[in-house]
């Protein structure tokens, strides 16, 4: 028999997990987000509905390219407790089961991200949408590594939420340390796209360079570190595009 490190045996663990899964499938039907076709007129209802959608979005993004971590589960749990169901115990329990299911066996459908983001766009004003993107960025940042898949999903989410690219990259630069990136994707980090010509690329690199170079002597150590890392990425990109 295989022993688990914490002393429980594997069979018992599997039984409990399957039971939790079945329970989840049951509760999922209870907390399933309303489809976009549902017409909500009250702004308070819209806000709450957007928050439910945010949990789905957050869980999906957290699972992109890696397993969701305990820290990320905690971030989502706090969000649920604070923003969705501070008092409603049954709803909270249903959500906890959902979190566990994602931790143990759910592989989310990443294509749903765009759809959910579109639904959120219909429900919230700019400030609300900005907050949700901010929350999702902080969520992926709670883990040690931010995967490329997560960055792609965040970028797509920003597009669907109609948060302009410059603001998106400003948020990214503030919230996620470059050192956490699995791979330095210059398209996402610097906004360089394949359709840009050499002059456009150089101009963009120049602007990014000036911006981050001015932050190298910032009084906050984390900002200084981010600035140094960004300068390295910009210099690499410059070598790559000029040679």
């Amino acid at each position, binding site marked *: 028999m295989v022993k688990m490190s914490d002393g429980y045996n594997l069979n018992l663990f599997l039984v409990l997990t399957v039971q939790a899964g079945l329970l989840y499938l049951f509760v999922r039907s209870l907390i399933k987000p309303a489809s976009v076709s549902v017409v909500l007129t009250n702004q308070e209802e819209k806000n709450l509905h957007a928050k439910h959608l945010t949990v789905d979005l957050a869980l999906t993004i957290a699972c992109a390219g890696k397993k969701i971590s305990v820290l990320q589960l905690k971030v989502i749990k706090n969000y649920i407790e604070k923003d969705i169901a501070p008092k409603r115990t049954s709803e909270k329990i249903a959500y906890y089961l959902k979190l566990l299911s994602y931790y143990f066996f759910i592989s989310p459908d990443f294509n749903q991200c765009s759809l959910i983001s579109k639904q959120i766009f219909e429900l919230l004003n700019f400030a609300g949408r900005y907050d949700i993107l901010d929350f999702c960025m902080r969520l992926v940042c709670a883990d040690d590594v931010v995967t490329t898949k997560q960055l792609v999903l965040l970028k797509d989410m920003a597009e669907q939420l109609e948060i302009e690219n410059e603001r998106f990259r400003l948020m990214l630069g503030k919230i996620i340390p470059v050192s956490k990136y699995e791979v330095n994707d210059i398209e996402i980090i610097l906004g360089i796209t394949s359709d840009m010509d050499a002059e456009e690329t150089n101009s963009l690199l120049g602007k990014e360079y000036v911006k981050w170079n001015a932050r190298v002597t910032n009084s906050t150590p984390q900002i200084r570190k981010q600035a140094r890392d960004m300068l390295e990425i910009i210099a690499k990109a*410059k070598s790559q595009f000029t040679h």
Partner: protein
Amino acid sequence: MSGSKNINIAGIDLGTTFSAMAILNTIGKPEIVPNADGERLTPSAVFFDEDNGGIVRIGIEAINSRHLNAERSVRWIKRHIGDSNYHKTIDGKEWSAVELSSLILKKLKQDFAAVHGDIDSVIISVPAHFDEIRRKATMDAGKMAGLNVIGIVNEPVAAALYYATTRRVSGNVLVYDLGGGTFDVTIMSTHGSNMDIICSQGEHELGGVDFDQKVLEILQQNYRDKYNSELIITDEDRANYEDEAEDIKKTLSRRSVARKMLYGPAGSIKIEITQQMFEDSIAELLSRTDLLLDAALAEANMTACDIDRIILVGGSTRIPVVQKRLEERFSFAPEITINVDECVALGAALHAGLTFQREKPNSLPAGIANGLKDIKLTDVCNHSFGTICAPFDSKIGSRVIRNQIILKKNTPLPCEVSQTFYTMNKEQKKLEVTVTQGEDAAAEYVNIIATHTIDLPPGRSAKRPIKVTYSYDVNQRMHCKFEDVESGKVHELDLAIDKDGKLLETAEKEHNNQLEALKIE
């Protein structure tokens, strides 16, 4: 020795790897003052003697001692100046970067005094991109060393000043200053001895020590490849191979290949590093120099075609690929007629003379005054200065914290700029005013250099005007005025880097006592 009636006006280039000192002679021409060993450059290195705690060695002796006891030595202090978190602990005492820099300055002062007597007034050079905190820290170090620091000059400005006074120059000049630890580009317009600085851009951590580090990485990799073992085990090994790497870099500036024996713990190895290998290893660092050059040209609203001359400053400009890239970019070769290691100290001495003349015109000896009479320099503000405010962001639908720039970078000095802001709330009793330094609109990305709370008169509605005025004089002293327009109440902040308070005086006194007890060799 200078005549007893003469005034000793000096300039100091406090560099990352080397420091130099110059004096204005009796006819107002700057001359390098050699150190006690007769060398024109003094390594910016400190070593605390292990046998006698009261002795501090500065310069070449400190470099050599570092190979035997790296723990008690410090180099590249300039990279840490202004960083309050940096400390080097020796025998239980924590030495800040300012204190360590003051030891180097004290040694320079001591060597100067042995030949010329005491220094009356001195200017210390700093990289153009240094912020107020670092400028003030440099000045503090000078004061702690017992120097009468009358100002600070930007290194490229000092170099250009020296250059322009030694030959006739007209047109747009680009000063390319790639030193031991920092990199600056300054663009200026010159007409004979009239110099107008247009802009400066700089990198805080890009210079010779970074190139050395790349060579060191090649050495380590070669050793690893052969023995599957690390070349560097102890701090002393590191100190030794850092110097070897510097030596290889210098050799590669003269020859196409450098050969060295490495004696690591697993055995010895003879290695060969070619110029091409070195250039490949520093490619990304050179990309950063290109980016900075682009940024300076853009800031000056110029292209490469608008530049008439390039002056090279700093030891790292001796690297052939650095010169080659500049020649390719500008289609003419940079000037190599001035000594890249000495021109900053020489220019700093000239700047000290100009400052002294401005502040005490009647005390300046006629010979010096005559030597300086044709020089006219217009400098610019090196950074943007602003204040924190909370404008309404219509897109987000709420107030956001922003840095509003008031005095823009590269504004010619002296200058004065005002902007009006408004109180936020009805019955607002207090107003917190801040002075920021930095180019960003995002408040977290700028440094707050002063903050103060102003009491406002009671019983007023919201949106009352507050006029904020920043001025900056030719001695790089800043003055800020916050005026409650309706009541006429004014709050003034003087951010003069040499006049800001008792804290410095206390620290200075305390440190001077400690320095007196130390023997600097």
